[in-house]
């Protein structure tokens, strides 16, 4: 039981895919401008990592070593296409806003990295849990960054105004930097800093 829990909880903190494994930084930084965007992207990635891990783990004894990359890519691309079509059908505005970044989940290193590192050598159920765990670890960072950016960039959370009008009348202004995608890079840098000062084992020695 503790093993299954470990698979799910570890990626949230001590083995976080973004801040510790440095996987999957690529596709999502530009889309964390609001919590809603982060949530959709997070859920999409959880779906893809979980099902891709499960599928590859089921197939792991059938896939020849030399062409495993291409097999993995096809499985991932299939799942991402499903997500992309689903978003276009039910959340059209959001899918416009996320534009090419949904497609780029294919090359999101988390998916590929977990397939290579875990699903190729483990049974289907642990692989599924590992996928869900890593997807959540990714989503949680995205949501933290999205929340900070939305709060300071627009004074809102989930689209509701949380900083009252009176504060603006005193001369408070929204932070222009937080609207730019570049701020997410700084925020993740700072998250890494905080995490590593709390957990000394993660510090880079080199």
């Amino acid at each position: 039981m503790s093993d299954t829990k470990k698979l799910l909880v570890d990626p949230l903190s001590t083995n976080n895919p973004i801040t510790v494994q440095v996987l999957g930084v690529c596709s999502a930084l530009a889309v964390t401008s609001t919590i809603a965007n982060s949530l959709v992207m997070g859920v999409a990635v959880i779906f893809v990592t979980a099902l891709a891990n499960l599928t590859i783990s089921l197939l792991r004894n059938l896939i020849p070593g030399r062409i495993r990359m291409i097999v993995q890519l096809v499985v991932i691309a299939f799942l991402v296409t499903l997500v992309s079509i689903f978003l276009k059908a039910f959340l059209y505005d959001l899918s416009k806003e996320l534009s090419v970044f949904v497609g780029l989940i294919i090359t999101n290193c988390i998916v590929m990295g977990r397939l290579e590192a875990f699903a190729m050598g483990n049974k289907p159920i642990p692989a599924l849990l590992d996928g869900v765990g890593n997807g959540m670890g990714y989503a949680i960072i995205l949501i933290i960054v999205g929340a900070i950016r939305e709060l300071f960039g627009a004074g809102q959370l989930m689209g509701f105004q949380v900083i009252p009008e009176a504060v603006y009348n005193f001369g408070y202004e929204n932070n222009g930097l937080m609207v730019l995608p570049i701020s997410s890079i700084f925020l993740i840098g700072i998250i890494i800093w905080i995490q590593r000062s709390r957990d000394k084992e993660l510090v880079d020695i080199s």
Partner: protein
Amino acid sequence: MEFVNIFVKSAFLENMVLIYFLGMCSFLAVSKSVKTAVGLGAAVIFVLAITAPINWCVREFLLKEGALAPILGDAYAEVSLEFLGLIIYIAVIATMVQLVEMIIEKYSPALYMSLGIFLPLITVNCSILGGTLFMITKEYGFSESIVYGMGSGFGFFLAIVGIAAIREKLKYSDVPAPLRGLGMAFILTGLMGLGFMGLMGIKL
């Protein structure tokens, strides 16, 4: 002149790494020394310049609405295979990378040795697929797509060599321990990105 414009735009104003944050994984992982960064950067230019036009052809002659009509007859005039795009583009990229690897291995073993490990990694570099997808949303033509591929590859090259140079110098400075390595790399990327954003709005 238009080509120069596209090149400059894709390399500086819409830099893959520093403006769109694509290809971050390899950007952060392989930027510890300038020498390896140059190798990876060169490989990315090469692959982007090849895959962008090929994927343009694939889309134009196979996937686009009505593209099948000249081959299979008028009954297919309204068929659009656009939804297969992602799978096909990534397959094209994977094959092209494999092909480029074999060609380089045959004709220039020296270059192969220096690029060797990075070439297969490029398949999952987001900037390659990103290049294709952006090229499609921008609706470039064939020759423009070649220039766009080369330009964005060059942008990646510039960014990764730049950050590698800074990180080499940074070894001698006294960074707080928890920020060392990855944390610092993120903040550096942010600062470089701010610098590149200063170029925004330039028109040639």
